[in-house]
């Protein structure tokens, strides 16, 4: 007779601290030779082209911490503005050991493993509701993650037997998304935000978290946001469980969801604490 030792016998994943890198701790940009610190920058100054503008550009690069600033190109682009391409050397190294990288905690799993893991954990499909919320009319990213076709040869969540996907499309009010998540007892909510002008996405994303809180659903879903300007750190600060930036493949999101759900399942015992 098997007698497990109860819910506290759970897998513990490391506490998220970045493991200290084995390679050199201090790094500089790599141009022509290692650690030469050479960087290329481009920017525009609202100053008419000329000696003064070039000096201003060099000064701007110095303020960025670049030494030996050189102006490779200075072009008048109208309205008394000048466009610059410059090169300079960064002298202060980046200390790798002092960095903490915010990344969702997951390993890449293949489709079969994801399906198996979820089947073992939930014994039913994981319900994912996705939407581009608020004013956002862009569904390209959302579709790429959710729709069967996926993108770049990586199939979307619909192609996994372990996911039940509801794609609500674009310009979905947060209220409708929350109502749908409640109706379907969603396990995960995927929000796509592409429009970031004037930080509309920030207000919209926090509003969604607050709505979920008010509805008592925040604890019950894995809340994920994706978009070209989204980083994981930003997502966490906004109150999300994970954030996915550009280049994310459906498999990444599927891997994360499967592992996060499995982890929460194991921890169910902790919920009553």
């Amino acid at each position: 007779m098997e007698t497990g030792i109860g819910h506290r016998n759970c897998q513990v994943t490391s506490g998220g601290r970045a493991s200290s890198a084995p390679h050199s701790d201090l790094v500089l940009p790599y141009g022509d030779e290692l650690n030469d610190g050479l960087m290329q920058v481009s920017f525009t100054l609202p100053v008419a082209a000329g000696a003064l503008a070039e000096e201003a550009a060099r000064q701007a690069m110095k303020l960025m911490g670049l030494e030996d600033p050189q102006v490779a190109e200075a072009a008048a682009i109208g309205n008394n503005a000048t466009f610059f391409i410059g090169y300079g050397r960064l002298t202060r190294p980046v200390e790798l050991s002092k960095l903490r990288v915010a990344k969702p905690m997951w390993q890449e799993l293949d489709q079969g493993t994801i399906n198996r893991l979820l089947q073992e954990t939930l014994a039913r499909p994981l319900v994912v509701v996705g939407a581009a919320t608020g004013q956002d009319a862009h569904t390209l990213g959302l579709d790429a993650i959710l729709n069967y076709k996926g993108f770049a040869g990586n199939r979307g969540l619909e192609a996994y037997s372990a996911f039940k996907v509801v794609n609500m499309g674009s310009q979905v009010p947060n209220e409708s998304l929350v109502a749908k998540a409640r109706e379907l007892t969603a396990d995960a909510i995927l929000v796509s935000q592409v429009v970031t002008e004037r930080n509309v996405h920030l207000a919209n994303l926090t509003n969604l978290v607050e709505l979920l809180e008010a509805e008592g659903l925040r604890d019950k879903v894995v809340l994920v946001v994706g978009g070209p300007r989204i980083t994981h750190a930003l997502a966490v600060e906004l109150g999300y469980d994970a954030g996915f930036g550009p280049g994310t493949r459906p498999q990444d999101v599927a891997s994360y969801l499967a592992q996060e759900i499995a982890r929460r399942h194991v921890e169910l015992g902790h919920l009553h604490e």
Partner: protein
Amino acid sequence: MEQSLGHEFDRLEAALGLWRKNPDLFTEMLGILESLKDPLHAISLLQEGQVLSPAELFILANLCACVRRIRHLQDQTGISKWPANTVPPGLEPAEVLLAPGSQGQPRFYISDAYSASLAETRRLRKHKQEMWHREMAKQARAVETALGVRISGTGEMAIRKTGRAQLEKARLMPELGETRQTLSHVYFKLKPTRDAVNLETELNLLKAKQRAQETEVLRELSGKLKQHLPVVEAASQALGELDFLLSKAELARATDATRPEIIRPGAGDGSGSGKAGLSAKHRGPGEGLSPGKGMDSGIQPEPGRNSSPGPDLILQGAFHPIVLNEVKSRGGTYQPVSIELDSIVSVITGPNMGGKTVALSTVGLCVAMAQWGLMVPCNYMKFGLYDFIYFQPGEEQTPGLSSFAAEIVSLKQPLARAGERGLVLLDEVGRGTNPSQGRALYAALLQYYLENDTAGSTVIATTHYHGLAATLGVPHWQVRGLATEALGLKDSKGPEAGEGAGWSEGSERTELAGDGLDWLYRHMDYTLQKVGPDTPTPQDALVVAKALGLDAAIIDKALKFHGRGG
């Protein structure tokens, strides 16, 4: 298998016995287990010889404290009474290591007691810090006096731009540095004096030294703790087992559960070995006994194993905890399930909403719990272990398959394990297809089990199909259904729309119950009774439909059609 399960139940019973005698003590024990933190990560770090972080060390300190407190409690009941799951002694040295000089609530801090040199560094740093504060405060007071402006705790001060003279003066003071300007104010920050600058340098060095010494303490401590690893691991394992045992006991208490009696299937025969062979001899459809024979006799035949020592699965007063809670929450009374199964195949019939599916899942749940070593939510249970339990899934949507197709695909699973002893729970197979073919298929499936099962499986099948039990000549169980007085359809006693919606001042009503469900709940008798094989299947569908508020005109028409058809 039966033996180890029996052993597990012995332990559980012992724990429950102790619990009854010492309820307060157990409450405390649960509280302690609750406060336990998962130590596995800390243990694996120790195994690898790594340095533990303060948080991991706290978890170990907590583990030690829990062990100490649990042992103390077990002492009070007499440790000898704990046949297993006693928590090993011998953690005191580790506990002392983790919390020198501390008792009571576990805490972890890299205290001065670990290292005299660390204590000295900390003392010095604190001293220098105070000196720095005094130095800066002196400076701040001088500036405040000279300018008449308050300097904040962070050493910053703001001067309104309108106070020109003051501003000029501030700008000339060597003690101040201008930091920023806003629309209305210029901000200054107090510059450290030369002494303060020196102190800052010293403080930085001291801080680095302190951190290094603290890390050293953690390293040493981790090294020392590694020597206690075996006992820490044993304690962790024991607490885990205890936690599991008590969780099972807690569940048993919460559901007022009973220890099941486990028999060896066919054990009554006495010849012992070859379970499958035995069963085949005794339980298979007896030679010459045609299952169809009893159909017209009206007498309940006893197909199957007449010579067996008694029913193969007895369940008395069983309940499904989730359904029970749901019934309680709406203020209803729950009718437990009692059933005795002594045939390979048994059929359950009953009206819609009559709890056939609940009865089926209750049997499944009780068997599963018993096999997992859990006390069973019933008054009495006796059964033999199964190799597998199959519960035919309900109307779950499988993409690309109709519900009927999904059902068929699923049914292939238990059929593929024909050589094993299974508890096969079937819920209205064929409901998704046309009735005559559905019925034929269902009958054939059950017949197949009757004819081919060699392992002694138990198949329970719910159905609406009239005469299925009789066709097969197997035991027939029926839900009593709606009380007779409720059955008068045209009778005014029948469910009227709006009944249950009556609500009085100061009271509450729920629209949930306003739709006739409440009426059904109150009038439905969920008791399972064994009936003759060809006892007609209750035809309560129309009553149920009426109770649920379907238009009376439709019900009337249905009654007419039904009359014609019947």
